[in-house]
């Protein structure tokens, strides 16, 4: 793969917390406008991986290249400005600000006032948040707060979007809408989605990467991954010694 069609690459990425290895030498490649799903049991290192990609955690060793730029030692705001947007696992929003203010703070990070206001309105419209514009985000239901965070990420117009469990706590209807939104945004941005909801994964999946104990177990199409013996073992919790 040449650098031009590769948006994200990690080389030997590793994160240790004391003696615990959360991520062990992960080599990960993502193409421009690719949609990738990341699955794996709890504690497989998916969220740790995301946090390193967005500089919320510093890797112990290894290298992260985004769009040809080494961001291994960058600050979170620099990574964001380069074009990575993330929705964290727990809704990560401004609880005491209104929905409109949340989206506006995000939009103003990239654009002048006039464009930011227009974009904020447009994004809220697209995500069906207009009716909630004046509400304090802290008063909203969990699913709605997820949407506010999604709106903030979309308003950044990133080149790469990382979504950590975007459908968690959503109704079936909301989950379908999320899948639709992901496909739409994917037209202009690469997306990596971490999810446990297999129905949701099936809706959107192209290539699936399976993490297990901090390593990449397998990387293939959804069908192949589902049929894989190792993956079944990992998810059923069968030990390798048996």
């Amino acid at each position, binding site marked *: 793969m040449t650098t031009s069609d590769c948006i994200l690459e990690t080389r030997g990425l590793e994160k240790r917390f004391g003696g615990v290895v959360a991520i062990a030498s992960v080599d990960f490649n993502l193409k421009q406008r690719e949609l990738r799903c990341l699955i794996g049991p709890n504690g497989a290192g998916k969220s740790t991986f995301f946090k390193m990609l*967005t500089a*919320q955690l510093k890797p112990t060793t290894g290298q992260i290249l985004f769009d040809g730029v080494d961001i291994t030692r960058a*600050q*979170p*705001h620099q990574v*964001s*400005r380069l074009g990575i*947007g*993330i929705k*964290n696992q727990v809704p*990560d*929003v*401004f*609880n*005491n*600000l*209104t929905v409109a*203010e949340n989206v*506006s*703070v*995000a939009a*103003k*990070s*990239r654009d002048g*006032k006039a464009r930011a206001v227009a974009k904020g309105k447009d994004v809220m419209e697209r995500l069906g948040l207009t*009716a*909630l514009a*004046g*509400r*304090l985000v802290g*008063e909203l*239901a969990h699913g709605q707060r997820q949407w506010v965070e999604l709106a*903030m990420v979309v308003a*950044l117009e990133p080149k790469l979007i990382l979504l950590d469990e975007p459908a968690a706590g959503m109704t079936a209807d909301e989950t379908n809408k999320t899948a639709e939104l992901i496909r739409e945004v994917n037209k202009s941005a690469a997306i990596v989605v971490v999810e446990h909801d297999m129905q949701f994964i099936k809706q959107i999946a192209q290539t699936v990467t399976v993490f297990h104990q901090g390593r990449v177990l397998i990387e293939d199409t959804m069908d192949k991954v589902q049929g894989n013996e190792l993956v079944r073992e990992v998810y059923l919790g069968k030990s390798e010694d048996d």
Partner: protein
Amino acid sequence: MIAHWQGNGGLVAATALGLVLLLALPQVVDPVMMIELTSYVIMAILALSLGLIWGYGGILCFGQSAFFGIGAYAYAIAVINFGDSTIPLLLSIIVPGLFAALLGYFLFYARITDVYFGVITLTVTLILYKVMGATSGSQYVIGTAAIGGYNGIPAVPPLNFPGRPDAALSFDGLFYLSGLTLLAIYVGLRLMLKSRFGQVVVAIRENERRAELLGYDARFYKLATFTIGGAIAGLAGCLFANWGMFISPDVFGLAQSAQVIIWVIVGGTGTLLGPIVGCFAIQWIATKLGAQQVLNANLVLGTILIGFVLLVPKGVVPTIGDAFRRLKFRPYVAPLVEQRRVP
């Protein structure tokens, strides 16, 4: 919180009320009380500076009096040397501003947070107390100004009309100048908080990580807020040195540092009016308590503080604001209800 201020109606009303009070009070209040009142106004500027840093920036600074004291000393030392007060007045803003910028740079860029930030800033002001107290020898002279250790600097020359040292500010003049300064800073901060910069500062207080993931360098915004707060506190210090025509290391003491925090707690964080109201109320009560012999003043003030923390934890102004909103708006019914159709 920004949402509650949409439109400038509140700001215009507050400004008008401030101007009326500024013009009317000297006509109706006796001269002795005017002296007290002037010191309240000056301290309210100090309270406002902490209200910005803590209430909006989310930075708990226990040593706001450090900048106040540095401003006072910078003015006193400079004006004794220069005679004319124009440059000393500017120095009383610039020197504490630079000090805040330097201190803040090391603390914010090292990502020192919350409690540690409070401890370090408190320590800094106490170190300044010790250092300034140790300057009593005749060798501690800057130009013609003897620093004087714990005895402080007496006979600090008053402010004068720019460029005319003979046209000194009268005591009434100091009241008007302090009042106008308070009003101007209040209006300035309100406008600043409505700007993009202000929105980002509040967003960082709400969720620093999210703000950074949106592309804002939280360290820079906090440093800028802290520096502005330090400069404002320094200006209050200059006015305070004018008020007493005297300055001593007591401005760096624990009592002074604690007072400012109490004013902001009682008045309410997250508003600009709160710290001003809290400052006036507590100082007025302290003055009244000092005039009687039945109860120990500090005991009563301590009880008031504990009562506030337990019963009105948000402070006076936000609590009144909430009560008004409850009267004005009926509880909001979530739109989810509308979606629940009968099958």
